[in-house]
């Protein structure tokens, strides 16, 4: 049967047409490419009118294949496949070629861009003629969901799903859920108590019949795909048997080893070697930190074991591996604070009374090391002047270019707390004041009225090198006041550094396990920055909260709920259609060498002992083609990416060169 191809070149407004002569490309394809029976250009091919045009042509001209030259297939492949399907054409007979991201947006020369567009269209036409109809595969969606991270975003998602009646597994690497929000004292701009609004959610998650918490645990491995992920979770040895522990706390009380708590207390307070990070921890089961425990250091003590009334301490406990099956995964792994020592001129770690924002959160917290009193590092003296330095490690080309978003508001909150709790003068050193959410600008004005001093300028240095008598014994903040156009030196007693929010240090590693990507800065990339903010490019994996970018509590909660809604949508569909772009093994010719079994990155090839052949588990195959290339007998074929299709595509790219070759060899020219 002769192929009858329709070619559709999109202007994308001026996005493509501004750099590529789209009319000419369409005309050229119609006149030169074999099998093209209709070739058109249109302002917006993805519009309903554009789609209708394709559908009508398919019917009118009996098209067998369709090529759309437009944007990235990530955006509109589904749209055009659907249009073909509407007109009775198998959707896998439609091929998109990317004339926007791959051509117009990355070109400066109109003529060359047009030439490249022609080559890409020719490639798509040559390829599409060899494409075969495929039937999508359906997979049942497991109603269980894995939430990675038990901070506020993860908790919100968990409770939304659990309340809707679906099972949720939460994996949290710390000993308790709660995340950073559990460390805070007050939340902006309403100044309500962080613990008061968070702990009910924590205990609800802890007690919910549909929720299983795995705290002090990490995700080791993820396999499978949407609907049926298989997850291996490592439950780190807690050295405390969860079933026996009642959370009475006598072990913590009697433990003789006290160490600096670098995690929950941000290095500002102490904890024992056996500890629960904070009183309202969920679960209330302590963990033994084997790096500081005296028993693990020199085989002495075991005080906790002797005193535990239920015999819950188990020094022999080992890491435990748990395997789960879930339909969807929500990633809510949160953020880390910028290490303020990386800007040595601000003195953190060198000058005692320079604090990080997290240390100050703990200081303000009534349950923190100072019982909520604002004191200098000596633990006694109340500061008379406090400086808050914004943008430490953010909006700084030496470290992170992005704006951390929340620090201005957090700084205002700190200012308010200092003014409320002490008689100190408060200075804020800011570059721009960014208070652009509901109630935020009003909060800024409140602080202006409360008498906080605002100095616009990036701090050059914080030093104890006094120049004038009034600077002696103080920390001096050297700054260019850009509103006055003057250098200023402001002596203060305490400096708070608003460290940037940074991605988790192992975000890329987890991303690789899940098959989702990170931005240059290390934040997880959403499917579409505006229109699909919680989905990722991998079906069935969603992101929520600060792991996707800096955001405050309301935004994290909104994303958590949004991700849960998306997951619920998947679950209620019960089945998902997955791409039939998979590998198949010709069993009659397979020698059973099993090379493909080991090479498959998705563990999607099984070995049939009885028949002595390998077989692809279609539901797990992602169509990557690794086995196709590796098979020494060449008996594995990848649907939609056959050798014939790929070579035809290459010949299409080289269309111009092939024509010249044909001219040079007149005998090769045929009708």
């Amino acid at each position, binding site marked *: 049967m002769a192929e009858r191809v329709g070619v559709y070149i999109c202007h994308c407004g001026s996005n493509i047409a501004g750099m590529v002569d789209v009319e000419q490309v369409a005309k050229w394809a119609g006149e030169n490419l074999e099998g093209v029976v209709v070739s058109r250009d249109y302002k917006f091919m993805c519009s309903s009118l554009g789609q209708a045009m394709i559908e009508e042509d398919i019917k009118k001209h009996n098209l067998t294949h369709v090529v759309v030259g437009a944007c990235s297939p990530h955006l509109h492949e589904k749209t055009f496949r659907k249009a073909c399907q509407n007109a009775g054409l198998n959707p896998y007979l439609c091929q998109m070629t990317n004339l926007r991201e791959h051509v117009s947006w990355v070109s400066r020369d109109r003529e060359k861009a047009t030439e490249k567009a022609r080559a890409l269209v020719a490639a798509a036409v040559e390829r599409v003629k060899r494409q075969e109809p495929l039937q999508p595969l359906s997979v049942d969606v497991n109603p269980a969901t894995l939430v990675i991270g038990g901070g506020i975003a993860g908790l919100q998602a968990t409770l939304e799903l659990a309340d809707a009646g679906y099972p949720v597994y939460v994996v949290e690497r710390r000993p308790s859920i709660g995340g950073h929000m559990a460390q805070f004292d007050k939340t902006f701009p309403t100044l309500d108590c962080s613990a008061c609004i968070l702990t009910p959610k924590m205990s609800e998650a802890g007690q919910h019949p549909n929720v299983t918490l795995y705290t002090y645990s990490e995700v080791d491995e993820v396999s499978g795909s949407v609907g049926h992920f298989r997850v291996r979770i490592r439950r780190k040895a807690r050295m405390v048997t969860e079933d026996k522990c009642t959370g009475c706390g006598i072990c913590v009380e009697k433990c003789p080893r006290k160490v600096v708590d670098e995690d929950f207390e941000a290095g500002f307070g102490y904890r024992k070697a056996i500890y629960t990070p904070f009183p309202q921890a969920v679960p209330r089961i302590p963990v033994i930190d084997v790096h500081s425990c005296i028993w693990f250091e020199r085989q002495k003590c075991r005080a906790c074991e002797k005193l535990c009334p239920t015999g819950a301490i188990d020094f022999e406990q080992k890491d435990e591996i748990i395997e789960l099956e879930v339909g969807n995964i929500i990633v809510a792994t949160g953020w880390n604070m910028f290490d303020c020592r990386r800007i*040595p*001129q601000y003195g953190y770690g*060198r000058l005692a009374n320079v604090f990080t924002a997290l240390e100050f959160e703990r200081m303000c917290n009534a349950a923190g090391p100072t019982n909520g009193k604002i004191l200098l590092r000596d633990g006694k003296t109340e500061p008379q002047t406090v400086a808050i330095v914004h943008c430490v490690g953010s909006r700084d080309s030496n470290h992170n270019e992005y704006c951390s978003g929340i620090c201005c508001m957090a700084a205002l909150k700190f200012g308010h707390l200092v003014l409320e709790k002490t008689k100190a003068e408060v200075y804020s050193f800011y570059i721009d004041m960014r208070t652009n959410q509901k109630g935020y600008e009003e909060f800024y004005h409140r602080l202006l009225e409360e008498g906080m001093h605002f100095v616009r300028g990036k701090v050059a240095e914080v030093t*104890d*090198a*006094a*120049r004038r008598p009034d600077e002696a014994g103080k920390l001096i903040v050297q700054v260019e006041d850009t509103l006055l156009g003057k250098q200023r030196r402001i002596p203060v007693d305490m400096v708070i550094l608003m460290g940037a929010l940074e991605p988790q240090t192992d975000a890329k590693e987890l991303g690789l396990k899940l098959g989702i990507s990170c931005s240059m800065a290390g934040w997880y990339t959403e499917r579409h920055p505006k229109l699909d903010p919680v989905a990722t490019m991998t079906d069935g994996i969603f992101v929520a909260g600060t792991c996707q970018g800096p955001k405050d509590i309301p935004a994290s909660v909104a994303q958590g709920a949004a991700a849960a809604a998306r997951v619920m949508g998947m679950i209620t569909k019960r089945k998902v259609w997955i791409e039939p772009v998979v590998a198949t093994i010709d069993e009659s010719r397979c020698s059973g060498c099993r090379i493909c079994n080991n090479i498959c990155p998705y563990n999607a090839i099984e070995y049939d002992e009885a028949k002595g052949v390998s077989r692809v588990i279609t539901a797990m195959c992602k169509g990557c083609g690794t086995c196709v290339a590796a098979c020494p007998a060449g008996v594995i074929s990848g649907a939609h990416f056959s050798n014939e299709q790929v070579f035809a595509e290459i010949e299409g790219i080289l269309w111009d060169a092939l024509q010249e070759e044909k001219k040079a060899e007149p005998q090769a020219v045929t009708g």
Partner: protein
Amino acid sequence: MKYAYYPGCSLECNSAAYDHSVRAVADLLGIELREIDDWNCCGATEYFTQDELAACAVIARNLALVDPQLDQVVAPCAACYLNLRKVDHLMQENPELESKVNQCLAAGKLHYDPGRVRVRHLLDLIYSDFGEATLRDKVVQPLTGLRVACYYGCQIVRPFHGTDNPEQPTKLDEVFSWLGAEVVDFPVKAHCCGGHMTQISEPQAFEMIRRLLANAEEYKADVIVTMCPMCQLNLDAYQARVNGFFHTDYKIPIIFFTQLLGVAFGLDWKKLGFGKEIVPAEPVLRRKLTAVAAA
């Protein structure tokens, strides 16, 4: 190990102590310094503001004169070090400038391919190529009990700060702590000494010098060690006039870091150029170091 050596003008005269001590310490460490034949002035900080191309050509001439067998040059003076690195960098970044500079050099039958010669500071060499174990091994006279303020100045760490943190550098601190010295916190360690400001406005210059001396005194430093002839000159030679101007009484010896390295390595003090400084260093060093030895 062989390196080309670019002493620069200061080390010929007012900072001869630096030159002597660099050579003595290098000799001890087995670093062979081959002085570039017929080197010329780097133009210091001034020439660049007058005529950029000429300034570049004058500096590039020195790089072009580096023995083709050698690919690293050691420049102890901060201004020379910065200028050599700057020109090499500018020529790599800007092909137009590179071709103009090479046209100039061609008049003297010279040519320089940017990137051919790596400009090193002796501190970086000692810190990175020798390291803690080697240096500790060489100590004959531990600097125990001596309170040292390490003064980096502004040019060595900026703007090409590939080798140390530009705001709070630490390599010199580390080296002296390896040798047993009590390195004091010196927050102004990378601040400017005023450079040639003494020739323009004395009150301004004196204030800049006073801040450095005051900070060293506040931290009870016995000596300030420097890596720059300009810094040494300003802090040492103008110390008395600063005292007169502010009615202060600073008496802090300012010595080159290589001089103190030499002391720790047990080299002859005369060979290290002691006695050329205006605020005498020997009495303080002898008192501190023997006091510890006696105790």
